[in-house]
């Protein structure tokens, strides 16, 4: 069982969280609306995912706790959780 340190709630079992994907893909700006072509930023954001081995940043949602969205840094090869922070507080992506 992976255990995830929630900045609000402390170290908790992963069963309290929902894994919700890759936190490294950048969401297109809202004014990008209308661009649907297959190579577009929206297509890439929605469908293109790497499957990295090693250190990775992921979204986890503390649905059975404080309901915060976290960015968890995790080693996908060993399941080691290296860091977690509130998604709200991370640097806004470019």
């Amino acid at each position, binding site marked *: *069982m*992976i*255990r995830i340190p929630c900045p609000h709630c402390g170290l908790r*079992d*992963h069963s309290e969280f*929902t894994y*919700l994907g890759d936190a490294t893909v950048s*969401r*297109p700006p*809202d004014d*990008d*609306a*209308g*661009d*649907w072509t297959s190579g*577009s930023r*929206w*297509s890439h*954001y*929605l469908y293109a995912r790497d499957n990295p081995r090693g250190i990775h940043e992921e*979204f986890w*949602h503390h*649905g059975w706790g404080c*309901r*915060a*969205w976290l960015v968890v840094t995790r080693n996908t090869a*060993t*399941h*080691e*959780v290296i860091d977690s922070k*509130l*998604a*709200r507080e991370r640097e*806004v992506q470019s």
Partner: protein
Amino acid sequence: MNRRLPDGGRIDRTQPVRFRFNGKEYGGFLGDTLASALLANGVLLVARSFKYHRPRGIWSAGAEEPNALVTVGTGARREPNTRATTVEIYDGLVANSQNAWPSVGFDIGAINNLLSRFFSAGFYYKTFMWPGARGWRIYEHFIRRAAGMGKVAKTADPDRYERIEAFCDLLIVGSGPAGIAAAQTAARSGVRVILVDENAEHGGSIARGAIDHASELREWASGALAELAGLPDVTVLSRCTAFGYYDGNVLGLVERVSDHLAAAEEGMPRQRHWIVRARQVVLATGAIERPLLFANNDLPGIMSASAAHCYLSEFAVCPGGEVVIYTNNDSAYSTALAFAPHASVTLVDTRAEPAPKLLAACRRADVIVRTGAVIRRAIGSRRVRAVAIENYANIGCDLLLTAGGWTPTIALHSQAGGRPVYAAESQCFLPGVARESWVAAGACNGAFDTPTCLEQGRFAATRAIEAIGVTPATIVIPACTTRGDMIPGPQPVPHGKCFVDMQNDVTTDDLDLASREGYRSAELLKRYTTLGMGTDQGKTSNVNALSLLAKSRSESVPDIGVTTFRPPYTAVTMGAIAGRKQGRHILPTRVTPLHNWNEQHGALMSDAGLWKRALAYPRGDENRQAAAIREAAHVRSAVGTCDVSTLGKIDIQGPDAKEFLERLYVNRWSNIKPGKARYGVMLQDDGFVFDDGTTSCLDENHYFMTTTTDRAEPVLRNIEYLLQVVWPQLRVHVCDMTDQWAGIAVAGPRSRESLQPLFADAITSLPFMGVVDVSYGGQTVRVVRISFSGELGYEVYAPSGIGEELVQELYLKNDSPGIAPYGLDAMDILRIEKGHVTGAEIDGNRTLADLGLARMARSDNRFLGAAMMKRPGLVDDRRPQLVGLEPLDPAQAISAGSHLVVESRPREPSASLGEISSACFSPALNRHIGLGFLRGGEGLHDSIVYAANPLGGTHIAVRVVSPHFFDDKGERLRG
């Protein structure tokens, strides 16, 4: 024959126990295992092997047992594949051999032994794959029956199981010398400790008789255990196996609480599943004695020397009178000396020059020693009679013990760490580099003598405690002597049919064959030969197999590979895993604040996710459909109430709340005014419709959103995602209010007057799509004038605590049957009549246009999904569109799921042009109707298509119509 010694052992001779094995009654004592009691009764043959049905006896005295698998209990409590070596006997215990028919003594399946050349490695793969992919399915049934591993009970498990969520600073697995030293160190340092051992008795090798000068050690161990038991922060568990080491330093343990009792005490579970989150772990799991290999090494009467030593000293059982002990290291000498007073003993040592001190001790005890000697073959048919020794005369014996060195038990270390490391000198694998927070100590860490074990236990605990940041205490370790050189001499190369894996009947020939056929890596070899894949996971066979393979290829063991250990270390019952999560406790049940009221009014309940929802309220002998039709008709003619408390309810507040709604929904929100509600539709990022619902504007900065029941959680989660991740700059807060509000839909031409006695004038002038908070009994009740049924209607939201009271009051003030409850089925009829879409239509694959909602979308593209909703595939006008469907025969029912085709003949191949999503009998129209999706449907009104349901055997002509069957202009709901 009685093999029990007149005194000694830790059995309780004052408490005799009667038990049955294979239908025959035997006696033993409290403290006996099934294995020790059978040996005491002279029973050597206890099982038949898996593949060849060879006679098998008891090999070990612990969890590693490959042979003596028995089924314990009867009826619903029958448990197969238990190890006779770990089952404690109690009065009335019933155990039976497996895998033998008609009896373990005469087993027809033993003919497999004569046919063994047909059952060689890869036999299953090669033979039963023919003919083609069907092969295995054809043969599986017969093979499983012939090669069975016992049968499970097919009735519900009557026993109770528990699960405990536990936390500690230091978990110590194994209470041998190393584990006890670690526990004492940790306990005196003031940290929270859990110490577990799989055996009934703590002490490990101290309690298993395999240590010289044990009395001082026993005294120390029992003192230490007594001290630990008295400390509040220390939990000591016996009969508790740590079976899995998981990520995050979480370990799974199973405690056999009452398996050893004839009957569990009141309230006592059978087993307890512990989930332990440990900051640090000390693994002191000990070591298992390896077999030495020779032909017929699997005969009953052949066992590990350490096991026999345990039976002799702990259970006072001397399983034989003429004992041959075969060894390649010093550990067997103490066993030989222990047996010498009770039997004639011959030691066969593969080494040319054992230590003179040991030889002298044997001479003094009349133990004959053959040095530089290699046993080639055991002689006997159903039990060992003699051994054939190279360059020596045969020796008659009725007990043959082998001591092939020690294999550290590193299953947990391997589950939670890097690859095990091969120690060539000790001929075994040692724990690899720790990945999780554990420290190894004792025999599992390659320390095969007690003084080193004690030292390592103390050291491991010290390191673990320092890692936590606590100053470790020091303890005094008792003085004790070493047992000699546990480093084994080389394994002699075996000849003939030697069983490497006794549980799965894998022989040296099988390994040779697999090697010749190119299965070179350890993992492939396992799968091809099934070596190590039995319930014992190769505890006694893995190392021997790898070293044999290495030798035959002149490679080193690590080059062959390392086997990977996976949980569980020993088999865990499904009951223990399930715990109390049985029946209705598998998932939580959500009931609405009106649940009691619904039940009191005869509601037929059904599950909707976790919710219990009322389908209909049948009266008398009315069936579900008749009730729904009556209820729907009643709403259209008078007034009905429906429990809609399961709708998702989200409170949204903040200066940017309106801007947020504008981005969330496809329709316009910037112009909504306080006191008004609005229907909204939201898309997923990918452009498909996500959910719909109504949001009320209570105030410029305060909104109350409802979602569908199904999507309550996904919508909330997505809102939280958007606010926390995508638009953290928006000043908006949301709060889930789903459980705080009871929701009651009040619909029908008389709905307004039915509510007036409760809310007086507050709602009289409430316009369509108006919202008002009214005071009711000192509490705020929210009334929204809104309609899903197409009638004049209201949704009343009351604090959950007064929901039931409010409904009671409503019914009191409106004499029944003027007002009547309606359920989900009636609600479905009403909304199908109106062509309103719900979960059956909004299934994650529909666009706004598919649902006939395209006109709702704003043109500014500033809402979720605006970009992707314009993808070519989503704007294709050949997509199936929402239509109404009427069977040409009004009395003919149509069913959801039917495909829509143009082919009029049933069962003719035909392309599906869409499908029916919802269907019902409409009391308002007095006919069957349905909603569905049809390619180009909006342009096909009035044409005829066919609803094909080949599974139901129906093919029904239906007319395509507008989905708005009833009151198309919406005059009733604005009334």
